[in-house]
């Protein structure tokens, strides 16, 4: 089964205090955040929602994770594909993969570069902290693997971020952690995010007669074989 490792993977968070305009809507709808330091091989905040009291003021923190996969070699939609993310920690967090629209080099401005109207998986309601967690990619994701040279994905909290539900007053701390591709250089090289997929197949079309009147026949990625029975 072919495998595509993740690249350009990291997480971005928005952290705002009530006395500086913070609220659930403010962090959820923010257009930029703080990008995690590069060379980070793991995070406890892959998808994270925190509301807490800090120095007398309520604070909201929202983490989102972004990653992409090189699909330039895929010309036929895979028959199935699974995004596999090795878990690290978990506290009551359901997560989901959605379409990412982030830049080719992740930046602080990518915090809101995702499209929740295009989910790439169903809700993942359980999170293993000692093995891979599977996101079964849906038809939209499979088609995106053909249509684009890279599949860009965002991983977010399902119950709060995806559904845009205010987690409520302090204190709330729900999160799921993961390994990133940076782990590939060390002892955890077997824990990096990746996609396993089954190559697609287009069944041959058999004509008994083919005719073109005044138009061309274009053959892409194949050949026309004419035999004599």
């Amino acid at each position, binding site marked *: 089964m072919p495998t595509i490792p993740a690249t350009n993977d990291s997480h971005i*968070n928005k*952290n705002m205090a009530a006395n500086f305009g913070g609220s659930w809507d403010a962090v959820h709808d923010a257009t*930029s955040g703080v990008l995690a330091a590069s060379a980070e091989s793991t995070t*406890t905040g892959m998808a994270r929602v925190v509301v*807490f009291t*800090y120095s007398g003021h309520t604070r909201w923190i929202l983490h989102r994770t972004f990653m992409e996969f090189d699909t330039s070699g895929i010309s036929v939609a895979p028959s199935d594909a699974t995004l596999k993310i090795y878990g690290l920690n978990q506290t009551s967090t359901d997560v989901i993969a959605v379409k990412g629209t982030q*830049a080719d080099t992740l930046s602080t401005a990518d915090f809101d570069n995702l499209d929740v109207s295009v989910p790439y998986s169903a809700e993942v309601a359980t999170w293993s902290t000692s093995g891979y967690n599977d996101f079964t990619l849906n038809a939209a994701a499979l088609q995106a693997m053909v249509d684009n040279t890279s599949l860009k994905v965002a991983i977010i909290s399902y119950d709060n971020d995806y559904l845009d539900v205010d987690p409520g007053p302090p204190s709330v*701390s729900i999160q799921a952690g993961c390994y990133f591709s940076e782990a590939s250089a060390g002892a955890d090289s077997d824990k990096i995010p990746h996609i396993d997929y089954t190559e697609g197949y287009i069944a041959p079309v058999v004509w008994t007669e083919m005719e073109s009147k005044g138009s061309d026949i274009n053959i892409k990625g194949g050949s026309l074989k004419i035999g004599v029975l």
Partner: protein
Amino acid sequence: MADYYNKGLDMTFSLYENKIMYNEGSGSVTAKRECTEYWFNQQNEIGSLEEISQISYIVSGSNSYIKDNGWSNISHIAFTESDVINLWFPSDNTKTISDVVNGVMTPNSFDEPTAIGLIKDTNHLVTDWSI
């Protein structure tokens, strides 16, 4: 130290004679301008001092560039662990970072690792921690 291109802003930030410079587009060019406090205040796309601090950290290697260059309205930002303590306890110099950790743990009923993680997340410009 490295040039930093922000695709969202479509700007490249670079260092020239210890000053953070910017130019439009990808890649540092000869014609560029200094990221002054006045320039920052005219920007709509860079939302906070923390963001410009993060950019300056990437470009200059200093996590306190805006402080070192005398920018105003930074009294709510911590650049060192001592700043974290002083912001929490502005009139009590006997307090330590352990008091800040307890200050997060107690009202929120968080365990110590969670509290420490949140303190670091909230004060992400601080790079040298004793916790």
